[in-house]
């Protein structure tokens, strides 16, 4: 999900507008990136309310402390902040013993409907992954980021990002196989993912 080309080209000037306190500039950036930020937060938190909180925090940060300079697209900066906020929030909630396991969706009425069945199964599978692996999947599959961009968003090395992606997919396949679920195990992944160098 890429930002509209027109918005991406005008981002430096719109960011200047945000720094100057122009509401129209901020609204335009919000409209361009809100959905992507929410989806990324949701993939990590597995909770709509938490994802909504994270999304608000990310854009409040953009509103109060816009980046002084951008080394790439604003979407990259926003996703970096989103992942940091979402992972920190999950760690905090886990420490307080208030973390949702995400398994409620399996028992919800929606899970019985045909069109939501895949979503419910996927949700259960995702809930078994560590939050950081979910973050990697979200950045790779939904935000179309390569391992280098994923590494930058999560503060990792590129190789570590590849390893996490590889492990996340392997774990999903194992989960699906053990439960007799339909997961595309034979679909080829990109070369950059298939050949990560495992850490000793």
């Amino acid at each position, binding site marked *: 999900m890429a930002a509209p080309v027109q918005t991406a080209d005008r981002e430096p000037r719109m960011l200047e507008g945000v720094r100057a306190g122009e509401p129209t500039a901020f609204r335009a950036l919000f409209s361009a990136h809100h959905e992507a930020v*929410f989806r990324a937060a*949701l993939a990590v938190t597995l909770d*709509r309310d938490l994802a*909504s909180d994270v999304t608000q925090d990310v854009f409040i940060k953009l*509103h109060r402390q816009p980046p002084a300079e951008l080394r790439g697209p604003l979407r990259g900066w926003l996703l970096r902040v989103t992942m940091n906020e979402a992972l920190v929030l999950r760690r905090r909630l886990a420490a307080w013993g208030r973390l949702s396991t995400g398994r409620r969706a399996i028992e919800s009425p929606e899970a019985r409907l045909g069109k939501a069945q*895949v979503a419910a199964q996927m949700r259960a599978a995702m809930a078994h992954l560590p939050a950081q692996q979910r973050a990697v999947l979200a950045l790779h599959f939904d935000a179309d980021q390569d391992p280098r961009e994923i590494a930058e968003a999560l503060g990792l090395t590129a190789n570590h990002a590849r390893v996490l992606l590889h492990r996340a997919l392997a774990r999903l396949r194992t989960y699906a196989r053990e439960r007799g679920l339909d997961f595309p195990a034979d679909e080829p992944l990109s070369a950059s993912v298939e050949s990560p160098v495992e850490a000793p």
Partner: protein
Amino acid sequence: MKPRELFRKWLDEEARARPEDAEVLEQVLRRGRAARVPWALATVAAAGIAAVALVAVRARPPPAPGEIYLYVNETGAPESEALVLQVETPKEKP
């Protein structure tokens, strides 16, 4: 279906009931503005206190000859009384 498609289909379903953009935007703008108010008040208060302190220091009356004033310098140490006694009123021009 490829893993990417499966992932996006799942996320599309999860994100289907996300809050309205306008609602979230209003909350963001409100919280963003609210955070600036305490900082603005603190800045104004600090400037006011500094101004009052400056006026209080400058309002110190000049010493009159024969009167003993005890002044302190920046370090808080008292200055010599002899300096005060040497203060003379300006002479009137003929």
